């Protein structure tokens, strides 16, 4: 069916589309897909079992007290309170042992935590791939620096990484504090204005892993999502080369018309498309938007009807987003959607 036909239902059902788990893989701190996350998960299990044991010990002691209390319970407040004067050797010994054990446990957990910290710090390698992630309100800009400026790839909300190779992510923010978090790969790294940081990730198996902003960054913090796509090295390289290409001018008339709409309307003020006059740096770079799985920072699947919804009524999808509504109508919108879809 034609794009135009598909637009109607989408516009009617504006609002967060039910984006069912298709591309989104499991994203668990406890289902690690890389060495960093795996080390942390093992630390978690250690902490968990120790904590469980301690909690059980306390609860048992409490039960003993209660059961014993039930046996020798006081039946009325009138029973006189006893002021114990002599030292209760047994109890003192027991409490001392308990405190000693506590100190011992704390010390060992401290060591474990320090060791894992060391290991994580060691997980870096010279041949690591360097990537820059810039946090914006409320989307992710992702840059793959190249030898020449023309080699640099800029994309959004989709972090492609090669499997089995460490990735050194440089974290940058120019507005508020965001936090990069992909649970199945590693813990968080805050993107702090004035304090560029770095975090080393690595995916050991191919897959699509969800990430999300983890530092409250304003009105749409909740929907600032990110996909990490881990691919075998060859497919990753293929992707990167494809992203470096400047898309050819559209041949299909609909698409050409879409490009005209794009350049005539407000789109070009904020968005960049390589090989066209559109050079806005405010919103995501759309040079290869057609190749992405999602739009609006992981909120909508990248399908024509959702693209239209997003452009016509973004405030219903992400109330407060900085993407303004457009008044592009009917055929123009259809053509624009086709054009954007063609940017692969």
């Amino acid at each position: 069916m034609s794009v135009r036909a598909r637009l109607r239902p989408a516009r009617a059902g504006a609002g967060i589309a039910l984006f069912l788990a298709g591309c989104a893989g499991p994203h668990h701190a406890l289902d690690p897909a890389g060495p960093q996350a795996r080390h942390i998960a093992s630390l978690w299990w250690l902490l968990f079992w120790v904590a469980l044991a301690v909690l059980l010990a306390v609860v048992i002691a409490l039960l003993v007290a209660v059961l014993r209390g039930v046996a020798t319970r006081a039946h009325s407040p009138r029973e006189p309170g006893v002021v114990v004067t002599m030292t209760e050797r047994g109890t003192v010994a027991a409490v001392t042992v308990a405190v000693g054990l506590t100190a011992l446990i704390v010390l060992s957990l401290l060591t474990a935590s320090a060791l894992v910290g060391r290991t994580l710090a060691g997980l870096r390698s010279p041949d690591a791939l360097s990537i820059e992630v810039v946090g914006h309100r409320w989307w992710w800009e992702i840059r793959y620096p190249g030898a020449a400026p023309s080699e640099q790839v800029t994309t959004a909300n989709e972090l492609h990484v090669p499997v089995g190779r460490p990735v050194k992510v440089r974290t940058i923010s120019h507005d508020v504090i965001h936090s990069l978090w992909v649970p199945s790969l590693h813990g968080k790294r805050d993107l702090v204005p004035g304090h560029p940081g770095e975090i080393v990730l690595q995916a050991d198996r191919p897959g699509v892993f969800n990430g999300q902003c983890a530092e409250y960054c304003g009105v749409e913090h909740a929907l600032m999502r990110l996909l990490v796509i881990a691919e075998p090295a060859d497919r990753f390289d293929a992707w990167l080369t494809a992203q470096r290409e400047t898309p050819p001018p559209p041949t299909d008339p609909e698409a050409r018309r879409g490009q005209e709409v794009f350049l005539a309307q407000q789109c070009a003020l904020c968005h960049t498309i390589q090989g066209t006059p559109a050079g806005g740096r405010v919103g995501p770079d759309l040079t290869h938007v057609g190749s992405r799985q999602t739009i609006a920072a992981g909120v909508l699947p990248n399908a024509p009807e959702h693209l239209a919804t997003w452009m016509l009524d973004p405030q219903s999808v992400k109330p407060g987003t900085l993407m303004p509504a457009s008044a592009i109508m009917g055929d123009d919108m259809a053509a624009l959607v086709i054009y954007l879809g063609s940017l692969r």
Partner: protein
Amino acid sequence: MSARGRALGVVAIVATLAALSAGCEREARRFKDPATPTQMSRDWLAAQRRGSAGGEAPAAPNPYARNAWAVSEGKRLFTQMNCTGCHASGGGDIGPALADAAWIYGGRSGDVFVSIVEGRPNGMPGYGGRLTVQQVWQLVSYVQSMSGQLRKDVRPGRSDNLYLGQSEQARRAQPSPRLEPARAPAPR
């Protein structure tokens, strides 16, 4: 006693409500504003003008003149739409200064609105097709705040970048800005 306590509380609340009731308007954040159509058509502008005395500027008063959030959105757009490219941060450069009292094409909300939508001769491009009505009003509000026309508690404070002189809220309101057009705009 606690009855009196409650009475006291109620009195306090009512008093404060009265004192702060201005707050509502200043703080409202209308991500979607039914009052401002998305579509910026020539007929819409024409309709606006028919209502206005001078026939030049829309009759509609600036809906955001007292809304701090809209003004700050206007400030963001002012940079992002690269208005700073010509007007600098109000001091003026290629384009005229906006932080002073002088208005070539009039400083009333409607005049500024038209200047942004249709552009002006000698370089000011028209943004009519590229901005929503809401965005234009946000820009109008910010432009007015630059010369201290809006209430102090609505004007933006300093921004998180290099210090370029006093912030809009710190600027002294320009003495009786000449709001009327200096001369009739060149016929288009």
